[in-house]
């Protein structure tokens, strides 16, 4: 008797909700032992991880604020990943959005133009798209692998941001420190919720999620993206060109990542700094897959990931080293990804059928 996986025709609803719970229970048990083994109160640590972040209004607002970049980028990535287009460089596209949006904010600094923040967001989305267009163009025109080009462009974007905040965009009154001015009020994202940092950009999340859901499930192009991933010849037969799909997925993700970058600098950060993102562009790749490349799933996964990122900080305040926090997060991610198998497959215990030979 051996366990064998059989593809489910319909994802099981029980497994859909049960699988993450199993993963969570496994990780909680692991965490209990881990935290106890380094001499910390395991219950306090687990509380700090999973409860403390969400048991106050401010905490909740921060969860939403942290999940926003992950969800927006994850939504874009999910579309491309369905079509087997591997944009690994959303982090770079985010940085370019921060640079583009930030440049507008600084160019209009002190001008008092109402609604500057809208221009900041739009510019960010466009510069993010432009950065994403490079790997798309190189893929289509020169057949250059998009994984490599989009990845390399992250490093270039990082250095470009560094160059700008050390040079042309440096705060003239900032004693030479590598940072821009603080953006003026009209360039900053208006707050959605007083006393928190949650800004109006959050309203774009439901719009983007529903929009992408509609696109994937109700449009021909969306259908082709889905088919394109599962069966490229079929997509070609349906008359949708591969270059079209590549352009669409890169520009979509680049636009969303750029928007995120602009909203980070015009929102919680409030200026350009050499470091803008703690790796949202990478984490969003995991978010996309944890969410099974579906809009609702991505949104949920983004909030789950935001929770454990926040929890990772909280436990440090209890004296848990960051290395332990990172180890715990790694195990949780692996368990969550692994548990997904239960959703898509049934486990059948059987003697392996001999192939007719």
């Amino acid at each position, binding site marked *: 008797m051996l366990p064998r*996986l059989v*593809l489910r025709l319909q994802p099981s609803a029980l497994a859909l909700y049960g699988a993450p719970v199993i993963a969570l229970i496994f990780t909680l048990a692991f965490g209990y032992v881990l935290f106890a083994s380094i001499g910390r109160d395991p219950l306090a640590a687990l509380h700090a991880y999973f409860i403390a972040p969400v048991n106050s209004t401010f905490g909740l607002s921060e969860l939403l604020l942290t999940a926003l970049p992950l969800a927006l980028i994850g939504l874009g990535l999910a579309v491309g*990943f369905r079509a*087997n287009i*591997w944009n*690994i460089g959303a982090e770079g596209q985010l940085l370019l959005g921060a640079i583009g949006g930030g440049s507008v904010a600084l160019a209009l600094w002190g001008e008092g133009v109402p609604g500057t923040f809208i221009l900041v967001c739009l510019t960010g989305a466009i510069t993010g798209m432009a950065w994403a267009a490079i790997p798309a163009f*190189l893929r289509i025109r*020169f*057949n*250059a*692998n998009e*994984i*490599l*080009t989009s*990845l*390399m*462009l992250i*490093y*270039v974007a990082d*250095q*470009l941001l*560094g*160059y700008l905040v*050390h*040079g042309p965009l440096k705060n003239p009154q900032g004693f030479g420190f590598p940072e821009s001015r603080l953006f003026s009020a009209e360039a900053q994202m208006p707050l959605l919720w007083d006393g928190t940092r949650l800004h109006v950009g959050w309203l774009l999340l439901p719009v983007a999620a529903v929009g992408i859901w509609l696109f994937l499930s109700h449009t021909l192009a969306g259908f082709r993206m889905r088919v394109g991933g599962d069966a490229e010849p079929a997509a070609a037969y349906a008359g949708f060109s591969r270059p079209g799909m590549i352009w669409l997925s890169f520009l979509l993700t680049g636009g969303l990542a750029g928007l995120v970058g602009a909203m980070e600098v015009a929102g919680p950060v409030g200026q350009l700094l050499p470091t803008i993102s703690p790796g949202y562009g*990478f984490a969003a*790749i*995991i978010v*996309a*897959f*944890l969410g099974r490349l579906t809009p609702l799933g991505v949104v949920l996964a983004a909030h789950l990931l935001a929770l454990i990122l926040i929890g990772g900080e909280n436990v440090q305040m209890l004296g848990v*080293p*960051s*290395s*332990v*926090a*990172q*180890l*715990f*997060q*790694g*195990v949780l*991610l*692996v368990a969550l*990804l*692994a548990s*997904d*198998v239960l959703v*898509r*497959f049934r486990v059948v215990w059987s003697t392996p059928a001999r192939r007719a030979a």
Partner: protein
Amino acid sequence: MEESLWVAILIAAMRTATPLILAALGELIVEKAGCVNLGVEGMMLVGAVTGFAVGLTTGNFALAFVVAAVAGAVLSMVYAALVLIFQVNQYAAGLSLTILGGGVSAFWGQPWQGQNMTGLQPTVIPGLSDLPVIGTVFSRTDIVTWAALAACVAVALVLTRTRAGLILRAVGENHDSAHALGYSVRGVRTLAIAFGGAMAGMGGAYLSCVMTPLWIEGMTAGRGWIAVALVVFATWKPARVVLGAWLFGAVSVMQIHGQAMGLAVSSHILAMLPYLVTILVLVLISRDATRIRLAAPGSLGKPFKPA
């Protein structure tokens, strides 16, 4: 520049390239078998910390590299399980491995942080070291640098000249056909992934035992990602991995020398150079679409679901 400086640049480029070559050769085999493992950075870190621990406690660097290889391979089994058993997407699995490896290495590494050891020294070959240029190169490079080149030759030979290589490529090219032919797709991929982990582990150990004999959390500083990029850059050809790593190393080292000689260009712009050159060269070699398609494993990145 005088000749000795060129030799110095060559040596530095080779040393910079060695951990990249080791890790990239491993990843090349993994990808030839049809899997992309983005977790190289995590496996290098685990290799770095175990290699350092063994090197420090035993002083035996051969053992250090072996243990680092085993540690990298063990961690890679997490990826193998996720991808081959749990049917997780390869990119997500690899990224998780990077995070897990970072955590595991930092956790294990606490006792070794801040310790010093004498690293593996260059191997002095009597007679050879007295030769001009070549002698200088030999007297300032270590055995691992040359072993990495030997590994490249070995990988190339195994891939093209042996039955094992043929099976590996068959599995990577079309796993359904390979399965139908009776090859164990999972078995082959498990071995390939373990090899990839072992090579990444040794790449990490090169950093912690040879290049900078110390252990600090996160000391690989992104080299695992460069290794992944090199495989694509090399269009899955072992010799090109070496050329790519040398090119990358040479550009990095030459901009440092340029600055030391008074080149006053923003260091940010200079730091972009290796990445821009990599993209440029990739574009140039990718233009011949057919050749790329022939080199790229057909099943790369696709999940294998045995019927």
